[in-house]
């Protein structure tokens, strides 16, 4: 058996095998069909957009340092502010959060976790990356032509009458929508048809469940956004009279259409984060995930229920009372599956063997922040309180707790968790943990005051405000600066690891899912043949090798009965 044990540590890849080095030259990246390279290019892309969106966010916060506006001055101050918050929202939503986890980490991980060689449609995968770039170009050109000042929601009739580049931006969002659809479609097909022998639906890592649920939403909701934006463009160019009241259209119809996509889109953003946290908590606690089926089912439940609650963005817009109450009731149902997950994560940590690594720090802050984000959602789902809180800073704080405290933190946790796998380098743990602490503190300082601002009546999207709100706004601004420093710190930690980091073993954390069974970084073909797999959260056979500072698997390699036809276990059914 000893040979089996050693054979379970794949060692290090050769330059010829390593997906980063097996072919070189810029063209080998531009035309690559390798899902790992596409994932890495996405990672660079979304991080760049995040940097742009983040700088815009700092601009917003600095402007709000003073009740009369501080950052932007002159006659155009309000206009600049409006453009800045619009672009902050649009870039963060369309260019960063939606593609962040599914497209960047998902692309890298889905096939490797499945033991497959690639996604089902590699060309479609590459084209969806280029669609993303194309969409980004549209956004940038909107930025440099006459800007965009509609808010990221493009509400009519404002968006049909303003003289900024609405068409460029909506075309950009339209194209990004297709990028998102193709990614989702690719993942659904990949997960359905390319699972390795032994991996039944309930032996899939939870990250794959989350990705699957996300992909369902991407495929089902995004086309509606597509047609909505197309109709908006038609409304602006030809005045088709569907959304514009001046031509007998109805602006509330636009809101229904828009939120039918954009509410499920919230789950496109948060579901993959749930998947990452499930992996992180289990691996770094070295304990089987608690309540696997509940977590898996709750992902699907969220994906489906998420389609029924869009109306809660419009409680004040004048829907009939009955509709409003039904949407409120449905909204509460979504909170149940989210709560289940948090309880299950806590139970997973209980009696585990926790390693307080950088990814685990992010996972813990995720639980803290997401719980606040989720609980404050209850105030907004309750009709009486929502009428007061709607469109105030309370809403801003709530969705930042979910989107930033949830998705961004999980994304960072995921990047730190899989960074050794992606680039083959280990980063400095101490600095990584300090950065995560800074991010946590900065984030709370930024957004906790905003809850109070909101419940005291400060409306959102205000370039100037009444002096009585100044103190809380200033707290928030200083928090944003701290948050920015923390994020920059985290980025520097990752970048230094590229130059100075120690070479990463195949399994630095002790994970049991398939990506840890191939080398770091993986070879370009991932696995020579589809591995036969068991339980992704069974840590019995993962042992710490203190000498080599790595985890190895003592489990004998599973094999189909040698030299036999695997007819009983078809590769895909």
């Amino acid at each position, binding site marked *: 058996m000893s040979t089996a044990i050693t054979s379970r540590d794949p060692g290090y890849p050769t330059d010829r095998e390593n997906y980063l080095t097996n072919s070189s030259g810029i063209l080998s990246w531009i035309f690559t069909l390798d899902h790992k390279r596409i994932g890495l290019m996405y990672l660079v892309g979304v991080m760049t957009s995040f940097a742009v969106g983040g700088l815009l966010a700092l601009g917003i916060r600095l402007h709000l340092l003073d009740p009369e506006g501080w950052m932007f001055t002159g006659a155009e101050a309000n206009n600049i502010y409006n453009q800045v918050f619009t672009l902050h929202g649009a870039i963060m939503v369309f260019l960063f959060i939606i593609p962040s986890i599914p497209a960047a980490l998902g692309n890298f991980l889905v096939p490797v976790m499945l033991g497959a*060689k690639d996604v089902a449609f590699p060309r479609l995968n590459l084209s969806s990356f280029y669609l993303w770039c194309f969409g980004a170009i549209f956004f940038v050109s909107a930025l440099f032509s006459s800007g965009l000042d509609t808010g990221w929601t493009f509400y009519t009739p404002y968006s049909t009458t303003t003289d900024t580049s609405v068409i460029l931006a909506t075309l950009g969002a339209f194209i990004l929508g297709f990028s998102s659809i193709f990614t989702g479609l690719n993942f659904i097909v990949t997960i359905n048809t390319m699972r390795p022998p032994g991996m039944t639906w309930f032996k899939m890592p939870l990250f794959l469940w989350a990705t699957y649920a996300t992909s369902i939403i991407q495929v*089902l909701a995004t086309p509606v956004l*597509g047609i909505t934006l197309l*109709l908006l463009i038609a409304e602006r160019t030809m005045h088709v009279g569907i959304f514009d009241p001046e031509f*007998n259209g109805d602006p509330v119809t636009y809101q229904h259409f828009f939120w039918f996509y954009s509410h499920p889109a919230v789950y496109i953003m948060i579901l993959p984060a749930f998947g990452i946290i499930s992996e992180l908590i289990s691996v770094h606690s070295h304990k089987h995930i608690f309540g696997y089926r509940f977590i898996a089912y709750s992902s699907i439940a969220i994906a489906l229920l998420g389609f029924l609650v869009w109306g809660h963005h419009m409680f004040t817009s004048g829907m009939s009372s009955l509709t409003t109450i039904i949407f409120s009731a449905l909204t509460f149902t979504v909170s149940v599956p989210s709560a289940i997950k948090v309880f299950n994560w806590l139970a997973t940590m209980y009696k585990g063997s926790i390693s307080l690594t950088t990814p685990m720090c992010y996972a813990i802050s995720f639980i803290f922040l997401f719980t606040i984000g989720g609980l404050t959602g209850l105030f907004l789902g309750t009709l009486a309180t929502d009428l007061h809180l709607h469109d105030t800073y309370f809403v801003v704080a709530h969705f930042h707790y979910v989107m930033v405290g949830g998705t961004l933190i999980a994304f960072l946790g995921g990047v730190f968790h899989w960074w050794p796998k992606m680039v083959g380098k280990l980063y400095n743990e101490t600095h990584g943990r300090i950065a995560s602490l800074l991010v946590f503190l900065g984030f709370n300082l930024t957004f906790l005051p905003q809850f109070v601002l909101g419940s005291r009546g400060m409306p959102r999207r205000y370039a100037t405000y009444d002096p009585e709100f100044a103190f809380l706004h200033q707290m928030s601004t200083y928090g944003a600066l701290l948050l920015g420093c923390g994020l920059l710190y985290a980025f520097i930690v990752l970048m230094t690891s590229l130059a100075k980091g120690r070479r990463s073993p195949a399994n630095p954390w002790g994970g049991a899912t398939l990506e840890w069974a191939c080398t770091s970084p993986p070879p370009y073909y991932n696995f020579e043949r589809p591995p036969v797999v068991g339980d992704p959260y069974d840590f019995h056979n993962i042992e710490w090798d203190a000498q080599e500072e790595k985890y190895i698997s003592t489990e004998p390699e599973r094999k189909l009965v040698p030299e*036999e*036809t695997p007819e009983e276990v078809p*590769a895909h059914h």
Partner: protein
Amino acid sequence: MRFRLILRPHSEPGGFGRPANWFTFHFDTYMRGRPNSGGSSANGFRHMATIDSLSSESETHDEHGHDHDHPAWLAHHFDTPEQQFDSGKLGIWLFLVTEVLFFSGMFCAYAMFRMLRPEVFEGCSQFLNTKLGAINTGVLLFSSLTMAWAVRCAQTEEYKKLVVMIASTLSCAMVFLGVKSIEYSHKWGMGLLPPGSYFYDEANPHPTMQQIVDQHGFSESTAYFLTHSLYYLCAPFALLLVGVFIWLVYSKVTDKQFQYACAKPLLVVCLSFFGGVGLGMVLESGGEHSEHAVAHVDGEHAGEHGDAHAEDHAHEHGDEAGDETHAEADHADAVVASAEGNDVAIELLAESDLNTGAKAMLEAKQAQADMATGQIVPPGVEADLGIHKVERDVQTKRQAGVFFGIYYCMTGVHAIHILAGIGVLVWLLVRAIRHDFNRQYFGPVDYVGLYWHLVDLIWIYLFPLLYLIR
């Protein structure tokens, strides 16, 4: 290590495509040496009519290492042809789901506005020519048949028939577009446009370019486009036709057989567009008059007089000056007509929302005219409706425009899907001529077929919703 062998033969001068037995040859080498297929491969292969019967055997290939050669059509990351086919099939179905949802947005908009303003939809759908719609429905249904047949031909490796079927599907798509351009250009000339540019004026349904500029405030170039839109719509297809024709001649002269074989069906396809245009022209001029009558008075009325007025109508067409009083005077309902005829100036004034005086005057005149004909309830209004709702009320920018806004969005997006379908069908046609498909690898034909059926299906819904329900 896995190598991917590229076995696709390049087309060479003097001979194109793969030999008909290429696949058999290749597949035999592929199957040979595996325990299950044994010596029966060549014969056994012929009995496998569908891919399903192959599955149990093809799965065996995993065991004999990874240096085996995938067939060229099997992508390197798939283990079996079945896995590839299943993935593609699931993929295209998911894509169709997104397409359905894409259109569902517009169907929702249709349903909502129809619910809010049923009279607008009833009034305006009479402007749509049912005959043309029906012809297009038939054409698309037939194309679905040929498409399904094409899939079958790919499975049975009847290459000639496959090419014929794909080319017929393409031709039908072109006929559809031809008829559609007649419908569009006709409506554009009449000003039946989305509310932003709607200028239909029932007193003068076919304004000249000058009138469009003077009365409706369009720029000269827009007016030129609106009155000559058919030429603009046909121009790209005419260019295409010429291009394909030159290609055909060139490939014939230089004796490039593969290219010649591609250009030949494409020429027919391009010609079909103009077939569609011709068909549309014939039917449009016959069906149009009833629309006008409806617009003026009411449906029942038009039914009685529609035929009698066909000649007047032709006259009106020929004499583009559109002398409205003359055309109107021919109406049987002389009182109504003359009243309207004299009111052109007032009508124009009344178009402005500010001019409530002119509006009131117009309404009063209308009521008088109605009384003069001895009618208590104005024509076209059911007695039990109670409210004085004349047909003409819906023909305002804000009302009718919304119908046409939805009409152009729905049919326009559908037409874009037809265009996309034409694109992929041409790609299929070339591959079919190259003999790329065989009974193990017909996925692309199948997938495109599914897409085409969906596009067809959407039209099956659009036709009754827009043209028929009144």
